């Protein structure tokens, strides 16, 4: 398995070069987090809803095989063809095969992080299939030839000017135009043409209901519906953890999802697909891709409860100041950092360390995943299995020597405080990673222990 081009720390350093830009990114995401707070506080039953969502998802994990079989049976009865894929390659091959059978070379796609995980667009392109992403943010990053930086807000890392320049090049908008209304209108015209001419549409899946064999796709733009209802063939792709037992459970999850994601009480469109329309083919691809391995890890299986709202990213002090691309994984942020090591431990060993373990992610998670505990636990696993760089390993060992010997710890603290006071340049320099993007604090005159000992004697 390969290493990423840049690890999280290195990529964050590059992201932090422009301080105004980082501040803007930080504040934009914090604004979304605040909208989530407001929307959730309107409901007195919010915490009870989170608990219900969490328990339903626990039930799902412990009955996953039965629920999938039930879903398959009902979906087939509804006229949906169900496909199973063990890994990304199988998933991509199934999609390609369906398109080839219909001699289709062009497809529209609404948001699906699963196909990002599988690198499906690249695979289809290499096989002569053109895929147009139709979510505005996804179309923007697709034209820029980069992945989404956020699972809900794919182009959150870009400024109006970047998008204006991009559309000028690709869609022929006026040079220098930055008005979001004007730019969105240009994208609307450009994508309408794709919707009405493409015969195949691929969508993601937010929830699949075992009881009915139906599935729900949520969007604000209406792009999933525009694609699916005009196409001859609709392919829906999902990770197997998207299953929920009963239709009434949608009441819980649709109340949690948009409020957690963007602070909306619900997305504009919550589309419930059950049967293909007359003359249409509907397919469902169910993907494993190591999820069954994660299911077998007691410390990490709860990550599969995720409903992909992105709240943990919006609140994360590290994500907000390092950007989604620094995580080099389809799903970024805290949740991405506990999912990614399961996909590839070598490549993603840096991600569980990209956290302050402040716990804010766990506090906002609508299905109560213990995200920060899992980040901490992944660190142990990765260190034990030799995936942590030598320098970090030595640092950890040195810290454990200091922390396990009280006298040595007291002595080190005194030396440190003295050094910071008398020769501040020893710590306030570029060689000290704690000094990056930070002022060092004033060293206190004495340690808490010294203070305590003195005051007790008084």
């Amino acid at each position, binding site marked *: 398995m390969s290493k990423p081009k840049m690890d999280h720390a290195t990529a964050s350093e590059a992201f932090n070069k422009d301080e105004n830009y980082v501040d803007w990114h930080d504040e934009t995401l914090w604004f979304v987090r605040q909208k989530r707070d407001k929307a959730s506080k309107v409901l007195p039953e919010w915490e009870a809803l989170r608990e219900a969502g969490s328990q339903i998802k626990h*039930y799902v994990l412990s009955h996953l095989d039965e629920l999938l079989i039930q879903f398959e049976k009902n979906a087939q009865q509804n006229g949906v063809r169900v496909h*199973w894929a*063990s890994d990304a390659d199988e998933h991509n091959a199934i999609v390609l095969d369906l398109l080839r059978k219909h001699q289709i070379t062009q497809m529209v796609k609404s948001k699906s992080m699963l196909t990002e995980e599988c690198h499906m667009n690249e695979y289809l392109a290499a096989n002569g299939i053109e895929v147009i992403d139709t979510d505005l943010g996804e179309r923007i990053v697709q034209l820029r030839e980069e992945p989404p930086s956020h699972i809900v807000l794919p182009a959150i890392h870009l400024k*109006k000017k970047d998008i204006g320049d991009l559309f000028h090049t690709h869609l022929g908008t006026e040079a220098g135009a930055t008005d979001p209304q004007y730019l969105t209108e240009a994208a609307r015209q450009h994508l*309408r043409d794709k919707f*009405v001419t493409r015969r195949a549409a691929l969508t993601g899946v937010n929830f699949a209901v075992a009881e009915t064999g139906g599935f729900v796709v949520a969007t604000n733009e209406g792009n999933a519906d*525009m694609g699916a209802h005009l196409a001859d063939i609709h392919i829906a792709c999902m990770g197997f953890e998207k299953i929920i037992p009963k*239709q009434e*459970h949608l009441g819980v999850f649709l109340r949690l999802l948009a409020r957690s994601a963007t602070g909306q009480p619900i997305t504009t469109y919550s589309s419930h697909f059950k049967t293909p329309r007359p003359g249409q083919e509907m397919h469902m691809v169910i993907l*494993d891709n190591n999820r069954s391995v994660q299911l077998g890890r007691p410390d990490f299986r709860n990550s599969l409860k995720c409903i992909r709202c992105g709240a943990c990213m919006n609140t994360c002090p590290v994500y907000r100041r390092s950007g989604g691309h620094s995580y080099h994984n389809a799903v970024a942020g805290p949740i991405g950092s506990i999912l990614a090591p399961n996909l590839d431990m070598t490549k993603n060993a840096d991600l569980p360390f990209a956290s302050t373990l402040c716990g804010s992610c766990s506090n906002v998670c609508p299905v109560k995943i213990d995200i920060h505990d899992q980040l901490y636990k992944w660190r142990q696993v990765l260190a034990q299995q030799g995936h942590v760089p030598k320098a970090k390993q030595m640092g950890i060992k040195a810290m454990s020597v200091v922390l396990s010997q009280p006298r040595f710890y007291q002595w080190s603290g005194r030396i440190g405080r003295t050094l910071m006071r008398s020769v501040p340049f020893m710590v306030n320099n570029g060689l000290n990673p704690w000094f990056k993007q930070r002022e060092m604090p004033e060293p206190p005159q004495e340690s808490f222990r010294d203070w305590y000992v003195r005051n007790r004697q008084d």
Partner: protein
Amino acid sequence: MNAREKILERIKINKPEETSLPEVSTFPNEFANLQETFTEMLAAVYTEVVPVKNIGALLAQVTDRYQGVTNRATTIDALMPWADFSLTVNDPHELETLELAVLKAEFGVAENGAIWISDDHLSHRVLPFITQNLALVIPASSLVGNMHEAYQKLTDTSGWGCFIAGPSKTADIEQSLVIGAHGARSLVVYLLEDQ
């Protein structure tokens, strides 16, 4: 073993100890005045809610509001003479030039302003999305409080159905809200009082 068997086998071996569904997963409505909350929630997404006495008043309203609009269609019998665009097309692509659709829908949800529409009310699923402008008509008495009550009504979702809460929108360019992404550019909701 094929992929299906492999996946199911691995899940069976690896799944955690059995847990039960929560005792409580539906919550009672907390909103005192459903129509007021419904109207407020939709106002927040630039959607006007217009109470009308009966179908006759609805006809007068749409005739007045959409003066000068051509390519208007409806699924409501009493409005047929007002429409100038037929929905009896075989291919949904023929709806591309539709400017306005006034459609019968089933019920609304106060907590989020969502309106349920489905195959039961539509000849083509793409209709509420492909039209440039949309008006939905529901009985005022059909409002429910929250999504739990909504799903109590929806024991069967038919072949396809959708909750629609406002016009199509996006905030993908620097979080600036823009109305009219891919679907309808505007939504008006008519509440029929006499039904």
